């Protein structure tokens, strides 16, 4: 039986590579997308790096939403699946073999894109190939589930195109797959939270940049799993091995599959996963008051907790006599770029806290006082919001010998702790948190 399935897998691959239409859709179109992105984002340094997650998602989405169901439905119309039903092997195994072949085709197409991006645009390869592979598997499995459902719904090959576009186009336009999330209005960013495309990009993109790409990605991977599983179950219920009209229960199963999208989006919204995504690279000044208003201040640690402690506003001047002037003169907090200066100051509070420095609470209060007095209120709000919404952006310091902070905690922890301090500061500036 395994020999048969291996034969089937190899045959599907063989036939795909001998089909001109398959080559066009499987390889040429993804390359065209790569060049389209390359021409739009050629000024980035390095080019395309910030968009590789999108490019990969488009390729996987195309292979899954069009390639897989087109092959399944075309073979069903030819009566090939009727013939397969006569074999002494469960039909589900042949479906799996077909999906595996499609996953391999998509993987090869993605590899071609990565190689061309590297060769032509100089785009770096994923910094974490293992994480990239894992993310690819999750995204591909989820989208193949969708493709399988489309095959169950479509009565013929033209119907595959119609149904596939109903999934493909919204994700391209509003789902953060084609148009970057940061370029979308807030309402569209929230809508994207109800689509798997956003989560696909969000697990693939960090594999090119972030130090720990899949850390904190549990929700996104879970979202892809839930959406893919729901579609896969619905597709199995609607699977047909012979031509003919779909069953009357199609609406129920489509509703069930879409309910998974709705559930994922609702949970993401409720748990604060749908934070506004901002334009990158020093664009903190473009943060709007509407985006700032979206930020929540729930579940912050108390000011006298071990984590992110903050002294009361009334400080003993004698206790700060030595520290305050040094802080006021600290160069990283006095850059021309107010946003980066505030990020450095907040990081200083985070380093002291992570280093368990005895001055941590007092220093945190002094930093807040300095942000309040040295920067325009609007700038302070924007910069703090930037730290919260884009914790990975900007430069970060990990030690400050000028202030006797010599330990250098991991950058990841400094950035995480900076978010908590920024929330505490911004909440107070907005009077959403009590002193």
């Amino acid at each position, binding site marked *: 039986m395994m020999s*048969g399935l291996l034969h*089937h897998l190899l045959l599907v691959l*063989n*036939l795909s590579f001998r089909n001109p239409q398959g080559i066009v859709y499987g390889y040429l179109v993804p390359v065209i997308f790569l060049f389209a992105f390359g021409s739009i984002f050629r000024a980035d340094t390095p080019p395309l790096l910030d968009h590789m997650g999108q490019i990969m998602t488009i390729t996987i989405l195309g292979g899954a939403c069009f390639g897989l169901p087109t092959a399944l439905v075309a073979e069903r119309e030819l009566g090939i699946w009727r013939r397969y*039903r*006569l074999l*002494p092997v469960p039909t589900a195994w042949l479906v799996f073999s077909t999906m595996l072949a499609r996953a391999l085709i998509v993987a090869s197409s993605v590899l071609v894109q990565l190689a061309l991006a590297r060769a032509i645009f100089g785009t770096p390869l994923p910094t974490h190939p293992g994480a990239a592979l894992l993310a690819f598997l999750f995204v591909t499995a989820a989208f193949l589930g969708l493709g399988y459902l489309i095959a169950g719904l479509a009565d013929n090959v033209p119907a595959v195109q119609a149904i596939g576009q109903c999934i493909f186009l919204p994700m391209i336009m509003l789902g953060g797959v084609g148009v970057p999330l940061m370029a979308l209005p807030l309402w569209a960013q929230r809508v994207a939270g109800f689509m798997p495309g956003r989560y696909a990009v969000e697990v693939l993109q960090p594999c090119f940049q972030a130090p720990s790409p899949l850390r904190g990605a549990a929700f996104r991977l879970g979202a892809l799993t839930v959406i893919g599983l729901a579609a896969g179950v619905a597709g199995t219920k609607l699977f047909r091995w012979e031509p003919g009209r779909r069953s009357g229960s199609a609406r129920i199963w489509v509703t069930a599959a879409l309910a998974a999208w709705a559930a994922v989006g609702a949970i993401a919204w409720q748990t604060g996963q749908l934070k506004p995504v901002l334009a990158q690279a020093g664009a903190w000044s473009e943060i709007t008051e509407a985006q700032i208003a979206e930020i929540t201040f729930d579940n912050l640690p108390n000011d006298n907790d071990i984590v992110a402690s903050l002294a009361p506003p009334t400080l003993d001047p004698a206790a700060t006599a030595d520290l305050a002037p040094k802080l006021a003169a600290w160069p990283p907090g006095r850059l021309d770029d107010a946003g980066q200066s505030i990020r450095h100051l907040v990081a200083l509070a985070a380093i002291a806290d992570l280093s368990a420095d005895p001055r941590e609470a007092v220093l945190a209060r002094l930093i807040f006082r300095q942000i309040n007095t040295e920067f325009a209120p609007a700038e302070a709000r924007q910069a703090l919001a930037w730290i919260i919404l884009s914790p990975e952006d900007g430069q970060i310091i990990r030690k400050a010998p000028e202030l006797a902070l010599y330990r250098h905690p991991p950058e990841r922890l400094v950035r995480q702790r900076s978010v908590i301090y920024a929330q505490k500061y911004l909440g107070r500036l907005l009077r959403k948190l009590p002193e």
Partner: protein
Amino acid sequence: MRNTPAPSAVSVAGLRKHYGATEALRGVTFEVGAGQIFGLLGPNGAGKTTVLECILGLRQPDSGAIHVHGLDLRTHAAQAKLLTGAQLQGAALQDKITPRQALELFGAFYANPYSAGELLGRFDLGAKADLPFATLSGGQRQRLFLALALVNRPTLLVLDEPTAGLDPQARRTLRTMIRELQTEGRTVLLSTHDLEEAGQLCDQLAILDQGRIIATAPPAELIAGAQAPSRLTVRTAPPLARAGIEALPGVLACTQDGDTWTLDTQSPNRLLAELVRRADEAAAELLGVELRRPSLEDVFLELTGRPWAGAAQPGDAS
């Protein structure tokens, strides 16, 4: 051809199947002896394909029992699959697949298949072995499907309208190949709506009409049992006189069309001899004589009251 009853290769009892409100099969019962070529004969929509698909496990009957070589399909469908090969009606393969690839693929699912080379040679597909399926002619495609049906060395072959849509030469070739399968000891169960094919190829026929078996017997027996008269057509110059023709012994009915007489009779030998004698007496020259014996078409007409051609099926559900 073998007519001797043999151990049952297929046993179908009380098979019923609905498609929505349409009752496609209404208690179909028949037995296929091992080693026979058994034909399911019926017009389009009679239920032939549904019967075969139930036997192949592609459809679940509403009720009734099917046994393949004694194996009950309700409990031993997997084992029965290993003993069965099938060629389905209207089947196709991927345009780009080659006959060799197809045979290797389907053979790979079985423990002891025929090799692709063996089957390509046997079914005269060697020259087309590595060409895409789309380039094969209708006859070559049917031969390939027959080869695919044989790939697992089955003892039972189920063929759904195997010669439909083929030219006469391709039909003859395929019929020869089907007979060869029988000589190897395999049982062949086929469906057809081709009366000539049914009469020439099958040892045993079951006539299916509107989801019911209305007769089961060897073709010759079915025809012999028909009440329809033989039809003798005679052309002479000058034409024979009506009075003389009507007085001939055994004439049941007669019609004249110019110099041609058409006579219905139950005793064609005697009538023909008498006709020749009368023509001699009248100094008339015989220009043509044609005898048409009762056929399966007549059998169908007798059994259903409808002519074979255009025998439309209410609620067509093949």
